[in-house]
């Protein structure tokens, strides 16, 4: 569904991503792991259209979306929940969710999707009139994921959904992500610091270090790989 070929992304003169290639097949939960500063977020931002790559190709569902702006990319169903969540702090939870369905194709189904999201996250329903900026970290993360779901994605990209959360919350979030795949058949690409848990729920994974993809394989194989131990022990 998503194919990234030999991508290169620069921050000014500095190459943050080099010759990166990843694939996500429909229905898969793919993990992207690596140390801080490896370029994972940069890669995702280039895929979703927030950054323009300097070289390489990005293909989604057969479409060449290289260099497409973010607004167009999500029209195709590629939805990115960014690191830092990207919420609108002075708007209510409800408004944040409604804006998630901004695209025409999502807007017609807004009421139905809203109900689904509230079923998934009852806490959000309770706090629907609260300003997003006043929510706790865990609730904000739920809101961010919920907002992503409002766009009725085909591929949902989650960048560090567990960042800053307590271990229990991080666990719950990742379990929820797994349910999104198993119960709703969503395709997911997830970056997380919780490497062990992520590899446990993922089908396939890529390892990224200093801008390059240094390893890949079925998640179960990577867990037992000694090199991987070095990566996630070094985290």
């Amino acid at each position, binding site marked *: 569904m998503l194919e990234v070929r030999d991508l290169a992304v*620069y*921050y*000014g*003169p500095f190459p943050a991503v080099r010759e990166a290639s990843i694939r996500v097949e429909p229905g898969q939960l793919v993990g992207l792991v690596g140390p801080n500063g490896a370029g994972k977020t940069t890669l995702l931002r280039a895929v979703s259209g927030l950054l*323009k790559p*300097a070289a390489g190709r990005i293909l989604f569902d057969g479409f060449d979306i290289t260099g497409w702006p973010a607004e167009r990319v999500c029209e195709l169903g590629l939805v990115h929940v960014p690191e830092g969540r990207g919420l609108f702090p002075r708007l209510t939870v409800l408004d944040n969710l409604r804006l998630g369905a901004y695209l025409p194709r999502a807007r017609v189904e807004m009421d139905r999707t809203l109900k689904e999201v509230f079923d998934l996250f009852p806490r959000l329903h309770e706090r629907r009139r609260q300003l997003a900026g006043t929510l706790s970290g865990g609730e904000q993360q739920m809101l961010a994921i919920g907002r992503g779901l409002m766009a009725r994605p085909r591929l949902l990209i989650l960048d560090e959904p567990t960042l800053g959360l307590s271990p229990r919350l991080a666990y719950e979030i990742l379990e929820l992500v797994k349910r999104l795949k198993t119960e709703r058949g969503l395709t997911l690409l997830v970056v997380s610091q919780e490497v062990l848990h992520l590899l446990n729920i993922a089908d396939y994974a890529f390892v990224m270090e200093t801008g390059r993809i240094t390893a890949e394989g079925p998640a179960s194989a990577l867990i037992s790989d000694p090199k991987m131990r070095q990566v996630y022990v070094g985290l």
Partner: protein
Amino acid sequence: MGRRAALLSLLVAVLLAAFPYSAPPLYALSFLTVMFMYIALAESWTILGGYAGYVSFGHVAFFGVGAYTTALLLLHLGLSPLITFPVGGLTAAAFAALVGYPVVRLQGPFFSIVTLLIALLVGLVVKNTPALGGTTGLWLPFPDMPIELNRTIFYWLMLLVAAVTIGAAAWVENSKLGLGLMAIRQNEAVAEAAGINTVRLKLIALILSAGLTGMVGGIYGYLRSYVSPEIVFDLNIAVTLFLMALFGGCRRWPGPVLGAVILSVLGEFLTLNIGEEIARIAYGLCLVLVVFFPDGLIGLVDKVRISRKPAYKGGHAAER
């Protein structure tokens, strides 16, 4: 500064100084005097505005403080501004030191607007203080000498002051102070982190710049034989002086000179042939334009010069 450039500057200075001996029309002397004044104003503004990037909209406040200082010294103590103008500079510098501390801690446009407000407020205070002449202003006695000599003396004085400010700016540019100021302009947070005392440097630049501007103001009042809030806290002067610096390029000392010369000539030409409003409209348009060329004319010239050098391979990686 290169040997050739230094010689050239000296030549120009000597020629300019000798100019009055050619019995030119008084108008030419007056025009050049005002042009030198703007060179001096733009140059002293640049020390804070160009090097540190702190664009002051209200520098004319210091100009006015200097003018009023020498005017009062003349009226109450009988001292000629031709001698006391440095005192005008000192008062302006002291004033800057007084208000400077909270003001230099402001960022970007807030700093600019606050400086504008300072000019306005000082103007208002003066307007409402009868001892300072109030709204009617102060009339200064005309120096007792033939007009040609009068104009020539002011010509030389302004030329001197222009040279002094150019020297000051050039000195700052090549000093550690200048380096620090430019670091502040590039990225103040980084400069702070690198251990530069940004507040102190900005304050020094402000005080120096204000003092030089005050000196110029001290002469101007006497030149006009009249100081009033309108004349010396004139927002047109305020905008013109930084426009000239921005236009010519305020990263290096030759910039404001270039800007002042070109815009003075342009302004005068338009005023004489079409009208004052058209001249100001032209200035306004230049201000709009200048935003797209933040390094000014000098910046453009530099870019052309660099791209002509044979050693340049014409490549840095495609910018994102």
